[in-house]
């Protein structure tokens, strides 16, 4: 084995390959791959929550259960907040993807604009969800009002937490974008954040369909 006699001083913890933005192998860059794997773990997290939901629902003769305050089954209203919030969230995914396409094409102005719109739409989703929560609370649906409330607030609440995290992530991307840190050659963080945002959107579509659109069940006797 050859002996190295180079005495060029290296910083003590310089890891050239580990921090390379362009990868030694082709395909997906390290940060984006890492985000995709993280998303798969989040799929499993929601899987556990959904498993609980379906299990409790399967066990119940009446679903949604009867609201003791009104004597009627619990009802979730799509209007005026949740339906529009859903549309806005889907729209925000579109603007987010548009932002990615724009930075890929090195169009910083359109990238920043689209990303700002995405952040705002995400924030409005959270606002609408919050308002809807207060309305539902006043109707008697809370975390402690029984399994329907527990499962509803846990599922939508954790989704909302993920939206909140996503809004923060996108805001950081927006800030870095405004500081000029992204270009057609360097936009891994934009792509990673946008993948996370699409995931959050897909989870909401699933949640919305299951919680709001799936028909309930009544005892057959």
């Amino acid at each position: 084995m050859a002996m190295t006699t180079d005495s060029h001083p290296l910083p003590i913890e310089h890891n050239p390959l580990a921090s390379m933005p362009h990868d030694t192998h082709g395909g997906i860059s390290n940060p984006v791959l890492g985000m995709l794997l993280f998303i798969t773990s989040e799929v499993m997290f929601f899987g556990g929550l959904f498993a609980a939901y379906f299990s409790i629902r399967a066990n119940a003769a009446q679903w949604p259960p009867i609201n003791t305050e009104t004597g009627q089954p619990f009802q979730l209203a799509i209007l005026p907040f949740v339906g529009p919030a859903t549309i806005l969230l889907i729209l925000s995914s579109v603007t987010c993807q548009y932002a990615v396409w724009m930075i890929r094409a090195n169009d910083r102005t359109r990238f920043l604009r689209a990303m700002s719109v995405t952040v705002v739409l995400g924030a409005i989703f959270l606002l609408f969800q919050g308002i809807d929560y207060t309305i539902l609370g006043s109707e008697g649906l809370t975390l402690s009002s029984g399994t329907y409330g527990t499962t509803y607030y846990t599922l939508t609440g954790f989704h909302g937490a993920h939206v909140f995290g996503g809004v923060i992530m996108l805001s950081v991307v927006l800030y870095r974008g405004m500081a000029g840190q992204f270009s057609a050659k360097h936009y891994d963080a934009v792509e990673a954040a946008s993948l996370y945002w699409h995931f959050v959107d897909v989870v909401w579509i699933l949640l919305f369909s299951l919680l709001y659109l799936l028909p309930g069940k009544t005892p057959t006797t």
Partner: protein
Amino acid sequence: MATTTLTPTIPAYRTGLYAWLTTTDHKKIGIMYVINSFVFFFIGGLLALGVRSELAQPGLQYLTDLQYNEFFSMHATFMIFLFVIPMLAGFGNYIVPLQIGAPDMAFPRINALSLWMLPLAGILLLLGFVTGGTAAAGWTSYAPLSEDRPLAATGYGQDLWIVALVLIGTSSILGSINFLVTMFKMRAPGMTLFRMPIMVWTVLVTSVLVLMATPVITSALIMLFIDRNYGGSFFDPSRGGDAILYQNIFWFYSHPAVYVMILPAMGMVSEILPVFSRKPLFGYKAFIFATAAIGALGFSVWAHHMFTTGAVYLPFFSIMTFLIAVPTGVKMFNWVFTMWGGQLMLKTPLLFAIGFLTMFLIGGINGAFSASVPVDFALHDTYWVVAHLHYVLFGGSVFGVMAGFYYWFPKMTGKMMNETLGKAQFVVMFIGFNLTFFPMHELGLAGMPRRIADYSSTAGWNDLNLLATFGGFTIATSMVLFLWNVFVSLRSGEPAGEDPWEGNTLEWATTSPPPAYNFDHLPEIRSERPVFDARHGRTATH
């Protein structure tokens, strides 16, 4: 085969304790994982000695019922979540980048984050002891017992436990992402997937299991937290919930978790046996496929922990459980045939590896008994299960960890460990381990339940319990020998050089310890044994 390393000038603030606390170097992080894990091994061990002291004789001598419950609950919690899983992650952290010829992990800062979450979680768990009581519903924390807020005087212990486990789970998940990206994207040129060392392969499959399964227990723990603190009713049957649902979701993670706890140890043994038998691993590809099969099958057996609830589709889980014995058996054959006809170097790493093989085999066999539903109906929640789990986790994982520690200590520190002390530790630990846990087979068959602080003096269990306690203190003695060996070796161990064992894999192609950037240059990689090939001037065979 001497190599010089680059010795850069180091600013003062980058030395000493500050350097260790702020490092993102996978080697330092790996070492700190190992140290952290041993600290919690000792804490968990002390709790075990507390359990065994109480059980040595019938009657409550030292602990109240509640304290006893806290002891065995925290013993298992520390051992599983803060010893075995992170210890194996720590070895993986140190070894995997070296074995694939990479300069570090893919995400060094996230690596550091994963590490530091662990002592924090450990402190949260320990806080239970001083805030009114720790968790006391077993490491499994089944509802409704774990939901019972005024459970005697447990205070916030159960909630601290939940938060600590969510932290540890997050640390694991981040680590698994780090490992997977590193293994798939940072291998040295020439190292195809099927030239990766078996250790790397087992860490790969383990990382998949961690990535997929851990979030599920996070969800179960969060639901438990909501039930306990926000009036939730997930697991409350009186309000439409289902207590067994908790077990169901819990075990969906906790069963794959046992493979997380054994596979890297199997990987370490698979590195040691070829080197110390002077023969390549028998059936490299078969081993990889067997590992993948165990990983996949491991996701479909979880309810075998719940056979007696009456809420499980028994045939499905029983059949799948028996099936797992097949790839595990394949691995046993691979290991035995690696040694067969080889030139055995009977040093401490090999002794612990052989200890692993024999003890894990026993654990696998007594597990196969439990896979049979009628047998399990009789043995569930008895000491038979305690025997099984300790034969696989201690006889398996701990012996594997010891083997790996003795094997890689020279690489990590540049010093050899004392062989005499090592052999002495092995003998004392092997004897102590079997004295502790073999009697538990009989105790389980005789009907002694687990998780009880006391037992009737006329049940006939007295002698075996006393024997098991004696065995427990023997294990403790072996650990004192171990600590003494580490201390002595760090102080005045023989210099190890680059490759003291004549190893096969890339970590032996650099200095001991390696420089910060790992390799000055790499040998040509044409097989899964590049250092062996370089030493013997072999050309590529595959």
